[in-house]
């Protein structure tokens, strides 16, 4: 069976994110489904938060999860609609391994008239060994 690509075009997404915060952080598209999206954040020295140990700062991981989750909402909607992050909660289960690419997967599990609910995980190679878990909500701003 061919995968459901809905209205999402990964090439168009990457073209659109060639400016601004996402592009400066170096996000890369990895995969998506009907209600989820996976992006990658390659390791970079200028994004370190703990210089002694070379661990990535938590900020770029938060931005990665925000972006992947926002994308998951658009995928579940099957269309593009203006939205803003209402809140985002992130549990840092363990530090990211120095040198490794962080992979963030966001999933939209429920959409109401005004709100989209998301959850996600970040890992650095093994999905069964996550480094962060997130939960959040987005609000549609065109109401």
């Amino acid at each position: 069976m061919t995968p459901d690509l809905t209205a999402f075009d990964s090439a168009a997404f990457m073209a659109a994110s060639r400016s601004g915060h996402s592009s400066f952080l170096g996000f890369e598209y990895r995969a998506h489904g009907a209600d989820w999206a996976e992006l990658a954040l390659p390791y970079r020295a200028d994004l370190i938060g703990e210089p002694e140990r070379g661990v990535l700062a938590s900020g770029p991981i938060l931005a990665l999860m925000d972006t992947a989750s926002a994308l998951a909402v658009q995928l579940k909607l099957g269309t593009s609609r203006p939205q803003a992050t209402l809140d985002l909660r992130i549990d840092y289960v363990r530090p990211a391994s120095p040198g490794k690419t962080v992979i963030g997967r966001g999933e939209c599990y429920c959409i109401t008239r005004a709100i989209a609910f998301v959850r996600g995980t970040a890992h650095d190679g093994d999905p069964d060994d996550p480094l962060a878990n997130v939960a959040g909500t987005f609000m549609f701003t065109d109401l």
Partner: protein
Amino acid sequence: MDDIPYARFLGVAAVEGDPTLLTLPFADIVLGRPGFLHGGAIGGFLEVAALVALRHALGIESDARVKPINLTVDFMRGGRDKPTFGRGIVTRLGTRVANVNATAWQDDPARPIAAARMNYLIVRA
């Protein structure tokens, strides 16, 4: 703060004479949708503000290490094309855990664009 590469990446600067007040200039590097700050950049800025406040509370001499446990950010207003200010406040400094709040605003501290609550684990040498 100057020792944190990510804080330099964002363009975060300290405000002279106030050890816990920070600024974030509006620039392409923190841009989300056109004309607005990226939520991830605001969250990252709040994390830096929280960390600066915690380090200040621990004292410069301290060799304690801090590890972020979790973070909850509420986004209240869009961040516009102007400088953003941020400040962390340590609400409790324990022997093993610290609770820190951080807020970000643009024109008026009473009208925050975002607020965060962070918990840190403190590892004392």
